[in-house]
C-alpha cells in the first residue's frame, strides 16, 4: 500500500505524526516479520522499541499488512498495558505494586517516589524526563519491594534507595 493513499485517509497518518522516513522505518519493521504467524505482538513491540510508542498511524498500516480490521488492531494495541500511545519520558520507572512488594512497604515506597517526582502512577513529568508506571510483579518478590528503571532491576527498596533512584532519573 502506498504512502500517499494513507496520507489521504482521515483515520491514517497525519504528516505531522510521522515523517516519510519514519513511515519507511515502520514499513521496514513490518516487512521484517513476513511469514511469521500471529506477528501482531512482536511487530508492536518492535514498533514501540523503535519509536518509543505505537503511533496512531501504525494502526491502519498494520491492519492492512496483517489483513485484519483497524478495529481489531486498535483493540490489540489498547488491550495490552505495555503499548503506549504517547512517547514515554527519557527514563521509565516501573514500580511493583503487587502483594509481595506491598508486604514489604511497597505502597510507602510508591508514595515516596510519587512525591519525589511530583507525578502519579501512569504519568510523565512535565519536563518529559521520567515516566512512572505501576507493574504487577517483576519476579523479584523475594527481594521486595522491587522496581525496574530503564530495564535495570532494583530490589529491597526503602526510602533511601527510592531517594537515590529519584536523584538518578530526575537530578
Amino acid at each position: 500500500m502506498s504512502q500517499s493513499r494513507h496520507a489521504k485517509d482521515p483515520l491514517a497518518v497525519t504528516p505531522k505524526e510521522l515523517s516519510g522516513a519514519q513511515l519507511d522505518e515502520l514499513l521496514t519493521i513490518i516487512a521484517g516479520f513476513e511469514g511469521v504467524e500471529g506477528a501482531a505482538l512482536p511487530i508492536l513491540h518492535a514498533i514501540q522499541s523503535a519509536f518509543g510508542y505505537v503511533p496512531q498511524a501504525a494502526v491502519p498500516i498494520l491492519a492492512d499488512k496483517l489483513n485484519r480490521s483497524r478495529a481489531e488492531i486498535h483493540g490489540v494495541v489498547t488491550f495490552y498495558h505495555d503499548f503506549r500511545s504517547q512517547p514515554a519520558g527519557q527514563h521509565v520507572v516501573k514500580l511493583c505494586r503487587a502483594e509481595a512488594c506491598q508486604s514489604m512497604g511497597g505502597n510507602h515506597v510508591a508514595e515516596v517516589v510519587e512525591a519525589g517526582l511530583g507525578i502519579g502512577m501512569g504519568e510523565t513529568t512535565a519536563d518529559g524526563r521520567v515516566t512512572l508506571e505501576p507493574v504487577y510483579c517483576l519476579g523479584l518478590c523475594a527481594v521486595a519491594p522491587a522496581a525496574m528503571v530503564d530495564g535495570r532491576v532494583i530490589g529491597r527498596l526503602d526510602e533511601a534507595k527510592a531517594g537515590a533512584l529519584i536523584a538518578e532519573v530526575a537530578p
Partner: protein
Amino acid sequence: MTLRIFVPGDSGALAVGADEVAAAIAAEAGKQGLAVTLVRNGSRGLYWLEPLVEVETPAGRIAFGPVTPDEVQELVAGLASAPADPSPPGEGPPRSGGGGVGASPEEPHPSQSFARIPSPLEGRDRAAAPFTSHPLYLGPTEDISFLKRQTRFTFARCGVIDPLSLEDYRAAGGLKGLQAALALTPETIVDQVTQAGLRGRGGAGFPTGIKWKTVLAAEGPRKFVVTNADEGDSGTFADRMLMEGDPFVLIEGMIIAGLAVGASHGYIYSRSEYPHANRVMEKALAIAESAGLLGMDILASGRTFTIELRIGAGAYVCGEETALLESIEGKRGQVRAKPPLPAIKGLFGAPTVINNLLTLASVPFILAEGAAAYAAVGFGRSRGTMAVQLAGNIRHGGLFETGFGVSLGELVEDIGGGTATGRPVKAVQVGGPLGAYFPPSLFDTPFDYEAFAARDGLIGHGGIVVFDDTVEMAQQARFAMEFCAIESCGKCTPCRIGSTRGVEVVDRIIAGHDVEADAALLADLCDTMKFGSLCALGGFTPYPVMSALTHFPQDFGIVPPNGRMEAAE
C-alpha cells in the same frame, strides 16, 4: 591456576547488586594478580544471601554472601593467599550464626542475624580453610541447610552451572531424558509422564499425561507445544529463575513433549516484565539451534523440533491458557470458552499441548531417571516435587523445591524463618493474587492441591507471600478486587463489572457505614463472580476477598459471617 568464581546473573541477584560485585571482583583480581574466571550462574534461590558468591575449590564450592562491592577487596585478598597458603585454618573463628561483622560499617550486615547457616568446614579440604575466617564465609554451598533440606529434581542445575553452556548442561546430566525419549514411542513417553503422576504446575494441577494423551490422539496436519511462561502471580519467580539459570532444561522438556504428541514446533510465551530471562532464553535457543539440539535433525535423530520465544505485553490474564493462545495469534488476550479444549483445537486451530514452564521442565528428569523415581516423592495424589517460592515479608525468601506434603507452617516459620521484619506473621497468601489468605491457625495445612482446596485455598503456582501484623486485610481484599478490575479481559460481566463494584463495596466497608449489610453484599457479589465468571480470574478473586473477610473479620469492623466459602469447582 585459574580460580573459578560464580556470581549469579539472575535478576533477583542483579536487583541487589550482583553486577557491581562481579565487576569489583574482576577489577580487584586484576589488581591483585589473581587469575579468575567469572561464571555468571543462575541463582541457587537463597535470595536473602544474594549476591551469593561461590568459589570453586578442590573440596567443592564455598559460598560467601551477601557480598557487597565494598567487601570484595578483602574477599579477593583472601582468595589470592589461599591457594598458595598450605597452612591450617586462619586464626579467625569459623563463622557460625550471629558472629561475624560485615565490612560495611554503616549498617549491620543482614547475615549477622542469620542463625541457620551451618558452620564451617570441619574435616574439609585444607585448600578451603583460609577462606573460613572471612566475615562473609558461609561454608560449602551444598551444606547450607536451606539448600540441603531440598529435593531438587527440576532445579538441580539451577545456580550450579553456567546457564548458557550446553557442555555444562550435558555434563550435569542434561539431555539424558531426551536421549531416552528419542528411543521410545510417543505412547511410551506419554505413559512415563502419566506414571510419574506429574500434574500441571500452572495452578490447576491437571494430570499432564492425560493432557498429552489427548493431543497425541487428536488429528491434525500440525500440532504445537506451548510453554506458559507468563508467570504473573505475585510471589512467584520459579519460571524466571529457571529461564535465567537453566534454560536448556525447558528446551529439552519441550522437545520431549513434541516427540510425545507429534508436534514439531513450539512457542515459549514469556512476559515483558522479564527482560533478563527473555534475553537468556533467546540466547539459549540460538545455542541449541547451532548445536543441532533444535532444528531439522535433533541430535542427529532425523526428528524435527523448533521453538520460538514470544513476549507478552503486560496483561496478567494472558497467563490463562486460552487467552495466551489468542495472544500468540496476535489478538487481544481474551479468554475462549471451553470446549473445545486447546488439546483438540488450540493454537491456530491445531491440537496443542499447553503446559506451565515447570511442568515441562520436570519432564527431562522423569525420562532420565524413570517415572518411579519421580513418583516416589510426594503426598497423596500430588507426586514429585513442588518449587515453593517464599516471598514477601519473610526472612529467608527464596526457592525451596521439596516433595509435596510439607506443611505451610513449616515452610513459613521453619524454612522461611518467619518474617523479615521480625514481627508476628498475620497472614500468608498462597497461590498468587487469586489465592486465599491463610492465618497462622491454618499452618498445619499440608502443601498439596486437595488439602488446600479443602480449606478454601489453592496452591497455584507455589508462591507464598508472608505479611506481618501491620497488614490491613480489608485493604488486601480491596486490592484483590482492584487487581481483577485492572486485569479483567472484559469478556464476561461478573468479572468486568463485579470487580469494580467490589472495590466500591470494600471502600464502603472500610469507611464504616452499614458494615454488616455491605459485608453481606460483598459475599453475594463474590458468589456471583465465583459461579458466573468464564475463567478463574473473575472466578477465583473471591478467594483472597472471602478469606480475608472470613479469617480477619475484625479488620473489616465486623463479626464473622456465618458459613465458609465453598470449594471451587
